[in-house]
C-alpha cells in the first residue's frame, strides 16, 4: 500500500515537471518582439516592366517636391542644373541610405532581440542595434553609405537613430543631397498584417532650413516568394559623351555592310 502511494506520488511529480518545463529566456525575448516577416514594398513604388514607372514620385530623391532646402543647398542645385539640366547621374550598384527606405527594391526586416536587419535585393543592408548600445564615440565613427544605426522598441514601434551617413548622392546621384552631418530618426510600426507605416525625420542644418519629415509606408509584396540577389553580369549601359546608350549584345552579329 505504501509502495503504491509512493509510486503514485512520483508519477504525479513527473507529470507536473513535464507540464511546466523551464522556459528559455531567449524564447521569451523573441516572443515579445513583433513579427514583420515577409517581403515588403514601399507603397506606390512598384515598378512596371520598364523599371521606372511607378504610382507616385519617390520622396527621398533630390528632385522630390517639398524638401526644405536652405539657400546654400538651393544654390548648389541651381549650379548643377546649369551644367546638367537632365540631372543625369552615373549608374549605381545600389540605393544606399536613406533612399533604400523609399525605393523600388523589395525590403525585408529581420527582427532579433539584439538587432533588426533591414535589407533589399540590391544588398543595401542596415544593422539597427537594439541591445542598448550607443553610437560609437566621435573618434571611432566615420561616414559610410549606410550610416550607423541604433534603436529601441517603444511598444511595437521600432525607433531608429541613424548618424554618420556619407552624402547619399555620392553613392547614387538621384538621392537627396544631404550632408555627412545629417541626423535621421525613424519610427516604424506594423499597423495591419499587410502594412507597416512610419516616418523619417531628417535634421541637417548644412542643407535644410528646417526638419524634413518623410512618410514611410510599406505594403506586403504579393509578387515575391523570396528575395533574389544577383551580381551585375550584363551591364550594357554605354555613354557616348552626351547620352547613355545601350551597347549591342555581345553575341550579336555585326551590322551588314552597306
Amino acid at each position, binding site marked *: 500500500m505504501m509502495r503504491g502511494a509512493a509510486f503514485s506520488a512520483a508519477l504525479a511529480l513527473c507529470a507536473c515537471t513535464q507540464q511546466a518545463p523551464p522556459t528559455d529566456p531567449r524564447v521569451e525575448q523573441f516572443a515579445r518582439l513583433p513579427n514583420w516577416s515577409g517581403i515588403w514594398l514601399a507603397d*506606390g*513604388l*512598384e*515598378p*512596371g*516592366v*520598364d*523599371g*521606372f*514607372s*511607378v*504610382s*507616385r*514620385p*519617390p520622396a527621398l*530623391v533630390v*528632385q522630390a*517636391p517639398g524638401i526644405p*532646402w536652405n539657400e546654400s543647398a*538651393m544654390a548648389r*542645385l541651381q549650379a548643377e*542644373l546649369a551644367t546638367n*539640366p*537632365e*540631372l*543625369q*547621374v*552615373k*549608374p*549605381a*550598384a545600389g540605393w544606399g541610405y536613406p533612399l533604400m527606405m523609399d*525605393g*523600388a*527594391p*523589395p525590403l525585408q526586416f529581420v527582427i532579433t532581440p539584439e538587432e533588426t536587419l533591414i535589407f533589399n535585393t*540590391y544588398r543595401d543592408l542596415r544593422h539597427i542595434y537594439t541591445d542598448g548600445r550607443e553610437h560609437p564615440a566621435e573618434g571611432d565613427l566615420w561616414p559610410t553609405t549606410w550610416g550607423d544605426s541604433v534603436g529601441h522598441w517603444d511598444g511595437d514601434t521600432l525607433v531608429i537613430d541613424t548618424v554618420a551617413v556619407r552624402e547619399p548622392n555620392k553613392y*547614387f*546621384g*538621384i538621392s537627396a543631397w544631404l550632408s555627412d552631418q545629417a541626423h535621421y530618426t525613424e519610427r516604424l510600426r506594423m499597423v495591419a498584417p499587410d502594412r507597416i507605416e512610419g516616418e523619417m525625420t531628417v535634421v541637417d542644418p548644412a542643407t535644410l532650413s528646417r526638419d524634413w519629415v518623410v512618410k514611410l509606408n510599406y505594403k506586403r*509584396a504579393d*509578387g*515575391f516568394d523570396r528575395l*533574389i540577389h*544577383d*551580381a*551585375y*553580369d*550584363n*551591364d*550594357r*549601359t554605354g555613354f*557616348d559623351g552626351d*547620352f*547613355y*546608350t*545601350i551597347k*549591342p*549584345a555581345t553575341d*550579336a552579329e555585326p551590322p*551588314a555592310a552597306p
Partner: protein
Amino acid sequence: MHRILFTVLAQFAVVTAALAHHSPVMFDQSQPRTLTGTVREFQWTNPHSYIQLVVKNDQGQDEEWNVEMAAPTYLYNLGWRPGTLKSGDEVILTIAPLKKGGNGGLLLKATTADGKPIGRTPAAQGATL
C-alpha cells in the same frame, strides 16, 4: 528665395528621375514606338534584362533591336520568369526609343502576337522613379 525655389522645382518637374542602376532620360518617353518581331534572345540579367528582337525594316531587311527592361527582381514581381520568352517567339513590343537614335529602346508594354499581355502591370503607373 521663393522665386528661386519655384524656378528650381519647375525645372525638376520636367525632369524624369532615375533608378538604380541608371537614369531613364536616355529614352524618349514622348515618342513611343511599336515593334513587331521575333525574339532572338531573352537576356534575364542584371542590372537590366533585354529582349533581342529581330524586326523587318521598311526595306524588308531584318534588323535587331536592343530592348531594355527592368532588372529580374522587378520582372519577377510582375510574373515574368527566365522562360517567359524563348527564341522564335513572335511578340509585339511598345518601346520608348533611345534619344540618341539607333535600334534600341525601353520596353513599355509586351504582348503576344495575338495581343495577350505578357506579365502583370502594377496599378496606377502615373509617375516615374
